[in-house]
């Protein structure tokens, strides 16, 4: 299986490259590159979440910005309350804000999981184009809700002054925060590899390939797909909390449908259903944005051209190009 090993080789190179990247950036005296690499790690994690639903489960969700944004707002709301020492709720019980990343992550994961459960329950009743449009519409619903709800900044969004804390780590140091994000990205990749190779993953892939057959073996495709959708939303929600922490800012832009499209583009640029597809996609995206965004304000025009080219002529994405066709599994 030469192709498989080539893909594994590529994955190892990318992982090592990311691991040593802060040293390279420091040696080059370009600390800003570390921030770029942090964005790569976070966007990868968001796309890993989507890839689980889209690549493994065949659920073309065009509303993952909802989870990304909910994660972001979980961070924004908790941290802003911690910063002003005001409780979020006083009734029926008191909930205080916090600046501890671990709690924020947990809240982000739980909240985006709940949102994914509700959206999934409704939208998984349908399939195909309906599913695409309904996930899009629900994400828009949350987007417009946050825009018109003035308590947490409305259209202007919400800023926090200091990055949140992680026990034993100085999160203000860019490299440290990068390694936190990278560790979570690897955890996300590990989880998605584990899921794919588990019984549940087999059932999920079967749900993508042939629902009737799966049902005939006594497994309800709906439950499988809903579970995958919720896990997928949780992972993307965690990425949203990290992204908000990186920018120390959250706004409805994180919930907009352009964000959903962008996360989807990451998955496709890298290669649908590939383990490292999201990482490669995020790398290409950030490098592209960095190079072309510096040259012209119309860089998205060229991104559109590249994307169109990839969809029309280079199916399989960048990994497909570099490591050959995916195994038919």
């Amino acid at each position, binding site marked *: 299986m030469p192709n498989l090993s080539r893909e594994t080789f590529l994955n190892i190179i990318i992982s090592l490259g990311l691991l040593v990247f802060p040293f390279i950036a420091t040696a080059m005296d370009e600390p800003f590159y570390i921030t770029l690499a942090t964005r790569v790690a976070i966007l990868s994690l968001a796309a890993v979440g989507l890839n689980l639903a*889209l690549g493994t489960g065949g659920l*073309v969700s*065009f509303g993952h910005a909802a989870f990304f944004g909910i994660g972001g707002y979980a961070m924004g709301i908790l941290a802003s309350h911690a910063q002003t020492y005001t409780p979020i709720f006083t009734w029926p019980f008191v909930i205080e804000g916090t600046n501890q990343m671990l709690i924020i992550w947990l809240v982000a994961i739980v909240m985006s999981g709940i949102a994914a459960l509700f959206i999934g329950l*409704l939208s998984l*009743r*349908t399939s*195909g*184009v*309906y599913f*695409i*449009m*309904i996930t*899009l*519409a*629900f994400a*828009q*619903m949350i987007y*417009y*809700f946050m*825009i*018109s*709800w*003035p*308590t947490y900044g409305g259209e202007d969004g919400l800023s926090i002054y200091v990055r949140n804390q992680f026990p034993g780590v100085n999160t203000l140091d860019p490299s440290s925060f990068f390694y936190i994000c990278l560790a979570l990205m690897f955890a996300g990749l590990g989880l998605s590899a584990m899921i794919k190779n588990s019984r549940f993953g087999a059932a999920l892939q079967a749900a993508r390939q042939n629902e009737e057959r799966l049902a005939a073996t006594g497994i309800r495709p709906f439950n499988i797909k809903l579970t995958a959708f919720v896990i997928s939303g949780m992972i993307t929600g965690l990425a949203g909390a990290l992204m908000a922490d990186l920018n120390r800012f959250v706004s409805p832009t994180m919930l907009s*449908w352009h964000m959903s*499209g962008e996360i*989807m*583009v990451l998955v*496709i640029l890298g290669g*649908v259903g590939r383990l490292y597809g999201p990482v490669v996609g995020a790398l290409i995206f950030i490098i592209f944005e960095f190079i072309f965004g510096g040259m012209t304000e*119309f860089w*998205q*025009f060229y*991104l*559109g*051209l590249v*994307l*169109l080219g990839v*969809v*029309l002529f280079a*199916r399989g994405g960048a990994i497909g190009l570099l490591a050959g066709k995916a195994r038919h599994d």
Partner: protein
Amino acid sequence: MSTTLLFEQLLNGLQYGVTLFLMAAGLTLVFGVMGLINLAHGSLYMIGAFACAAVAAATGSFWLGLVASIVAAGFAGVLIEMFVIRRLYDRDHLDQVLATFALILILSEGCRMVFGSFPLYLDAPGFLAGPVTLFGGFQYSAYRLAIILVGGLVALGLYLLITKTRLGIRIRAGEADREMIAALGVNIATLYTIVFAIGAALAGFAGAMMGAIQSVQVGMGEPVLILAFVVIVIGGIGSIKGALIGSILVGVVDTLGRVTLPGFFNLFMDTAAANSVGAALSSMSIYVLMAVILIFKPEGLVSNNA
């Protein structure tokens, strides 16, 4: 709340619904006949608005602008269909979403390159600029009333086109069985291009008409596009009748929700809280409507096979 205000908002909702219908009709036609989901439909709306604003500014005639919007959007539709969309019919929906998302980036940024980031302004023609007096001394914007009438006429025209003409028969046949009408000697490729161009021209026309109410700017088509998606999900994908019902429903619910919900919450909250809760919930109202309809009729109000 006064009856006059309510009636005025009802007409606004109707006007919004009619505009949505022009968008949704093209989307649902393209999906019904070709099985294609087209995100770039909002860009055609934008192209229509820009063409109208540019031509109206150059010639001073809104009517020439309106013609230009139809021609420009229709022509853009033909080009897009021939160079991109045509390759997507046999692909899965994911590829269609991505390719048309790429088209949005290209068309939006292309438009920004040509016209810049500042919005253009388009004035309604002089004799429609003021209000008209309807029965009982009730005054309403003449231009919005004209949109309702024109939209209604277009809907009627589309209905006649689909049900009474040879082209309409072919379109319906294409929806039902693509191979069979190809075997009967109908040129499928041309038929698809025509259908796509009709949808594009309708979207461009809607953009031009709305351009005189809103400002003409890059990205103006996207909110309308998403509402049009909601419309066709509610109405049933592929059904023109469903698109009409869905558009009016969405237009009216959206507009009335914005007006009535803050007042409703004011009954048991103070004004500031009622306004913010009302605004937040009214922005969600049509999505709630969609969710409710999906729970009871997952295939939409008007089934595709009807």
